[in-house]
C-alpha cells in the first residue's frame, strides 16, 4: 500500500470522493465518410482529447471504382472515358499523361495544333480546379462569399471547355494521336473540318482577364483578411524534407519551397514554348498553399493567353490505324496535374487494351502526410489543413 493510498483511507468518506481524479479518457471521433468538409467520402478516425488530436488515421477506399482493373478489359480509346473521371474537378488534365504514354508506346508524333489545344485545355482545367480550391478553403474556414465569386469566374472557363469539347467536367476529348475534331461536327458529316469554335481566341482572352481580376480580388479579400491569416499562417506546416519524404507533389510541394514542376522538367506537352513562372512558397503552411495556388491561376492564365495567340494551324490528329494495337512494351509517363504529379504506368502485351495499368494519383500521395501532419493539431485546424491539401476522393481511391 502506497502512502497516497493510506492517506486516502484515513480520509473522511466525502473527502475520498473529492480526491478521486476525474477519468477523462480520449474520445474517438469518426469524421466521415459523410462529413461536410472531407470532400466526399474520406474517413478520418481521430483520437481526440477535447479538441486536440492525439492520433489520426485516414481510412480511404470508400470510392474505389477499380479503374486499374477496368482498364485491363477495355481498349485504349475506351480508357479515355474512364480516366477523366479520376479527378473530376480537372477532368481534362487526367487524359493527357495516359494519351502521351500510349502515343509514345506506339511511336506516334502528335500534330502541333493538337498539342496546343491539349495544353490550353489542360491549363483551363488547372484554372477551374484551382478556383474550386480557392473558394472551398475559405468556405471551410467559415467565409461563404469567396465561393460565389470564384465559381462565377470558373463558369466562364467551363463554358469555354464545353465549347471546345462538348463537356464541362468530362470532356473525353483526347484521341490517340491528337484530339477529337470539335463538338459541333455531327456524326453525319463525313469530312470534319471544324476544330475550335468561332471566336474562341477572343472569348478565352476576355475570360482570362476575368480570372485574373477575381484573383486580384481574392488577394485582397482572402489573403489580406486578418482572421484568414490567423487561421492559416503557421498552421499545418509541411517542411520541404518531410514533403519530399511523403511523396507530396504539385502546389503542396511547391508551397513548402521546392521548385519542382513537371511542366518545366518533362516534355509531355510543349510547355517550353511559353513563358511562365514556377510559383513557390516559403513556409509550407496553409496560407502558403493558398497563396501558391492563387498565383498559379494567374500563371496558368498567362500560358493560356500565349497559347491561344500562337496556336499553329494544322491537323488535329496524326495518322493512326483504325484498330489501335499498342506494341509490346512498358512505359511510365507523368504530368503536372492541378493536384500534383499524375502518372500512368502502362504494360502492353501487344493487344488492343493494356495488360496492366497503374495509376499514380497526386491526391493519394498527398494524403499520406495526414497522420503525421495532424498529430497534436486542433480539430478546427484539421479542417483548415484538409482543405488546404486540395484533394478529391476520386483521385484518392480511383
Amino acid at each position, binding site marked *: 500500500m502506497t502512502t497516497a493510498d493510506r492517506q486516502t483511507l484515513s480520509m473522511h468518506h466525502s473527502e475520498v470522493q473529492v480526491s478521486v481524479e476525474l477519468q477523462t479518457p480520449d474520445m474517438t471521433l469518426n469524421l466521415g465518410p459523410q462529413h*461536410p468538409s472531407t470532400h466526399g467520402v474520406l474517413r478520418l478516425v481521430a483520437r481526440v482529447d477535447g479538441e486536440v488530436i492525439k492520433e489520426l488515421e485516414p481510412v480511404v477506399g470508400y470510392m474505389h471504382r477499380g479503374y486499374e482493373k477496368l482498364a485491363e478489359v477495355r481498349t485504349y480509346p475506351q480508357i479515355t472515358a474512364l480516366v477523366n473521371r479520376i479527378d473530376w474537378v480537372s477532368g481534362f488534365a487526367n487524359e493527357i499523361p495516359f494519351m502521351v504514354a500510349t502515343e509514345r508506346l506506339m511511336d506516334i508524333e502528335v500534330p502541333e495544333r493538337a498539342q496546343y489545344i491539349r495544353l490550353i485545355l489542360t491549363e483551363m482545367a488547372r484554372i477551374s480546379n484551382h478556383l474550386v480550391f480557392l473558394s472551398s478553403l475559405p468556405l*471551410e*474556414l*467559415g*467565409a461563404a*462569399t469567396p465561393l460565389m465569386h470564384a465559381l462565377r469566374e470558373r463558369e466562364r472557363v467551363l463554358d469555354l471547355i464545353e465549347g471546345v469539347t462538348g463537356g464541362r467536367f468530362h470532356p473525353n476529348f483526347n484521341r490517340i494521336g491528337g484530339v477529337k475534331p470539335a463538338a459541333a461536327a455531327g456524326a453525319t458529316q463525313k469530312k470534319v473540318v471544324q476544330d475550335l469554335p468561332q471566336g474562341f481566341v477572343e472569348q478565352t482572352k476576355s475570360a482570362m482577364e476575368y480570372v485574373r481580376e477575381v484573383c486580384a480580388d481574392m488577394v485582397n479579400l482572402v489573403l489580406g*483578411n486578418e*482572421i484568414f491569416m490567423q487561421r492559416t499562417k503557421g498552421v499545418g506546416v509541411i517542411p520541404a524534407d518531410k514533403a519530399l519524404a511523403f511523396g507530396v507533389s504539385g502546389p503542396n510541394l511547391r508551397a513548402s519551397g521546392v521548385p519542382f514542376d513537371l511542366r518545366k522538367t518533362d516534355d509531355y506537352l510543349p510547355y517550353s514554348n511559353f513563358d511562365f513562372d514556377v510559383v513557390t512558397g516559403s513556409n509550407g503552411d496553409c496560407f502558403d498553399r493558398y497563396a501558391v495556388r492563387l498565383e498559379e491561376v494567374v500563371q496558368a492564365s498567362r500560358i493560356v493567353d500565349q497559347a491561344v495567340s500562337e496556336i499553329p494551324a494544322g491537323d488535329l490528329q496524326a495518322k493512326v490505324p483504325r484498330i489501335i494495337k499498342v506494341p509490346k512494351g512498358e512505359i511510365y509517363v507523368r504530368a503536372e496535374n492541378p493536384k500534383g504529379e499524375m502518372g500512368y504506368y502502362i504494360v502492353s502485351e501487344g493487344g488492343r487494351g493494356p495488360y496492366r495499368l497503374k495509376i499514380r494519383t497526386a491526391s493519394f500521395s498527398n494524403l499520406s502526410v495526414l497522420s503525421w501532419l495532424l498529430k497534436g493539431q*486542433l480539430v*478546427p485546424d484539421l479542417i483548415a489543413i484538409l482543405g488546404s491539401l486540395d484533394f478529391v476522393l476520386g483521385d484518392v481511391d480511383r
Partner: protein
Amino acid sequence: MSAILDNFWSLLALKILLITGVMMTVSLVIIFAELKISAHMQSRVGPYFAGGRYGWAQPLADGLKFIQKEDLVPADADRPVFKFAPMVVLAGTLAVFVIVPFSPDLVVRNLDLGVFYALAAGSIGTVGVLMAGWSSANKYSLMGGLRAAAQLIAYELPLVLAVVGVVIQAGTMSMVGIVEAQAAPVFHLGDTAISLPYIFQGQFIGFIIFMIAALAELNRTPFDMPIAESELVMGYLTEYSGIRFTMFFLGEYAGIFAMSAIASTLFLGGYYFPGLDSATFGPLVLMGKVGLLVFLIIWLRWTLPRLREDQLQSFAWKWLIPLALVNIAVTATFKVVF
C-alpha cells in the same frame, strides 16, 4: 375592455402574446433580410418566387416546411433534456424583450434593474445550447455545446463590463432611464439644446466591445464555432429536425434582434431621436437603429471567416476585458471629476 386590461393576469397574457407575436414576425423579417442581403453580396438573386414578389414569403414557407418535418429524437438521446432544450433557448431570448423600451410607455415592464435583467436573461440561451449538445448523444453536438459554454464564459464578462460604462454614465440601470439620460441635453448651441447618444459621449469603445461580445454570444460569424458547419457538421443543432430546429433558428434571429435592441438602447439613444416625439415615433426610431445594427451583423457574417476557439479566448481575455476595464475606469473618473 378596461376590465380585461385592469386584471393583472389577463394583461400579462396579452403582453406575452403580443411579445411572442411581434418577436416571431421580427425574426421572420430578419431571416428574410439575411437571405436577400447575403444573396446580393454574393451576386445571387436570393429567394425570388415565394409570395409572388421578391420572394417575401420564403421564411414563412421554410417555417411551414419545418413544421411538417418529422420531429426526430435520436435513440440514445436524453429525451426530456433534448426536447426541452430548444424551448430554453427560445424562452431565454424572448425574456429579454420584457425590458426593451419601444417608447417611454411602450415597454412591458420598466425594471429598475433592466440592464442587469437583460444580460442575465440573454445568457440563459447558452444553457439551452449546452443542454442540446449534451443530450443529443452525438460527439459533434457535444463539442458544439462545450464550445458554446466556453464562449459564454469568455464573452459574458466583456459584455457586462462594456455595459457598466453606460450604467455609470447614466446613473441608472433602468432601460427607460438610460434612454432619458441620453435625451437630456449635454450642452447648448445658442438656443438649441444638443443631446447625444452615449456612443458619441465617450462610450464608443464600449459600443465596439459590446457588439463584438454580442456577436460571440449570438454564435454569429466570426464567432460561430459552436455551429461551425464545416467542422462540427451543425454543432449542437446536428440532431435536431422539424419544429425543434425551427425554434433554435427563430431563437437565433430573435437573439440578433434582442441584442441589437439592447445595444441601440444603451449606446444609440434607443427610441429617442432629436426633434421627433418619442411617444409616437419611438418604436419607428428604435426599429431604424436596430435595423442598422442587424445589417451590420449580417454583413459581418457574409464577409468574415471564423476564428478558432483558442484565438477567441485569447482575444477576449487579453484584449476585450482589459480594454473594457480601462473604459470603466476612464468613465468613472470623468463622472467623478466633471
